[in-house]
């Protein structure tokens, strides 16, 4: 059985994914508003935090904006997982298994919705930040790279959500990933640079926590300018996560289809 070319398959499924994602205000609005709320509230506490000796900037909101971008990207985990989970629960995935659609096309297209939403979300956070006094040390080019880095993170987090949905087969169980992502975010260098954390055990956790490096990549563009090492570390972790998760998600999809 031969189907339409891969490009057409991905295109159609991606269009469906985008439409479904944007039709879910109940999922979108809290994911959009919660990071912004945290940004504004934490930054209002910031005058005292920036007084810590050696703090890299006088603007705490500039420092926090990177964590907000990563927090917004992390919401792609539950969003993508939720949508795929409901596809599994409603039997859509089983029905599509009867068509000649390729597994890789199906998995890749599921990320289109969160990617479109994520770009809009990142631009909104950046604009709110700029309006509130954020400066991008790396300039306009840095701002564009910031959006591109956020998109990579969104795809990486989204792929974790897809894998979780395919493993559990339930939209509800994917929701628990939100708590894991939030926990990792809090236990990272989200509110303070790693070198200024005074509590040893927390500094150790933050150093081994990959979320710290995801935050430090966009933060370098905002606070210190172009920093190849920070960008390479953050983007490398995100790219590796994306590749590994997409591979295991495609394998999980194949075994799920065989089961069907």
């Amino acid at each position, binding site marked *: 059985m031969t189907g339409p070319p891969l490009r057409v398959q991905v295109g159609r499924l991606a269009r469906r994914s985008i439409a479904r994602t944007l039709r879910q205000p*109940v999922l979108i609005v809290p994911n959009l508003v919660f990071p912004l709320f945290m940004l504004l509230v934490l930054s209002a506490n910031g005058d*005292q935090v920036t007084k810590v000796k050696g703090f890299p900037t006088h603007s705490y909101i500039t420092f926090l904006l990177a964590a907000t971008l990563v927090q917004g990207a992390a919401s792609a985990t539950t969003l993508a997982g939720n949508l795929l989970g409901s596809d599994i629960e409603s039997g859509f995935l089983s029905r599509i298994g009867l068509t000649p659609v390729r597994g890789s096309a199906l998995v890749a297209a599921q990320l289109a919705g969160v990617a479109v939403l994520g770009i809009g979300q990142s631009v909104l956070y950046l604009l709110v930040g700029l309006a509130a006094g954020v400066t991008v040390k790396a300039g306009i080019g840095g701002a564009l790279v910031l959006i591109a880095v956020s998109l990579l993170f969104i795809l990486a987090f989204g792929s974790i959500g897809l894998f979780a949905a395919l493993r559990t087969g339930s939209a509800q169980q994917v929701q628990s990933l939100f708590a894991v992502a939030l926990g990792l975010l809090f236990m990272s260098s989200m509110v303070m640079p790693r070198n200024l954390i005074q509590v040893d055990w927390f500094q150790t956790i933050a150093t081994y926590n990959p979320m710290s490096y995801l935050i430090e990549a966009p933060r370098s563009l905002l606070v210190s300018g172009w920093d190849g090492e920070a960008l390479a570390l953050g983007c490398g972790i995100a790219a590796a996560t994306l590749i590994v998760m997409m591979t295991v998600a495609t394998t999980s999809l194949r075994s799920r289809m065989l089961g069907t």
Partner: protein
Amino acid sequence: MTAARSLSVTRGVALQCTRKLLKNPLKALPPVILPLFVFAAFSGALSAVGDTPGFGYYDFTAFLFVFILYMAAMFVGVFTAFDIAIDYASGLGARFMIAAPQRMAIVTGYVIVALGRGVVGIAVVWAIALATGMPVRGDAPEIAGIVVLALLLNVAATLYGAGIALRFQSTASSVLILIPVFMALFLTPAIVPRDRLGSWLGTLAGINPLTPPLEAGRGFLAGDPVSVVLAFALAIGLVIVFWIWAMRGMRRAEQGPGATRRRGPGRRRRPGGRRRERGGRRRRPGRRRQPGASPSPLP
């Protein structure tokens, strides 16, 4: 007779909730774990803030502790309200209402459960804070003051959540219960003293009714009580306001899920959005009334 029956309903609701918790004790963890996570994160990452000039409190962990304690107490109330939403969504709440001559006996049952859970949650947070070496300067009556304030806020959060849960009778209402409580908590001087807050947050914290209990709690912990009367008055005021809110929610619950206010004489919207005819009778599908014909007396 009515009082005895109400008491029996209250006890029944409380026992039913407690039994559910004992069957699945893991359900009791999230409202305490989440604040402890915030405690670990902020006390770990931001401990250097305590050494900055103008901070003015004896210890940063102790400063954060009162906020975390109140957060745990209020989250326990919020999660008990989730149980109310689940019970009403599943129809159990409707059965309670048939049994109860005074409907607020049902809410009282949930409040008792929230208080019990709150005491356990408060004890856990205290134990962890003391185990990590948090210094305490207040004496026993002052510590009791912090605990009483936390329990009052626990009851206020339960009653606020009950009002929402009874109005919507759906598990989807959990977002409307949790998010405002979370936002109200963070719109206080959570991490730094009020005089060190940014302008807009300082203004909001100044009118936030949770700020005086938080500052009084910090005063108690430091052995230097401040604005105690105002804090207790506000905490008790919140309980009274949300008791009325929950009572009105119960009245709405009696009308069924999704019931809304009357919009005008004879005009009431149904949950499906279809408008009733004058007189309250709904037009049946497939039976069209002829123009000029009188409404049928048959149902």
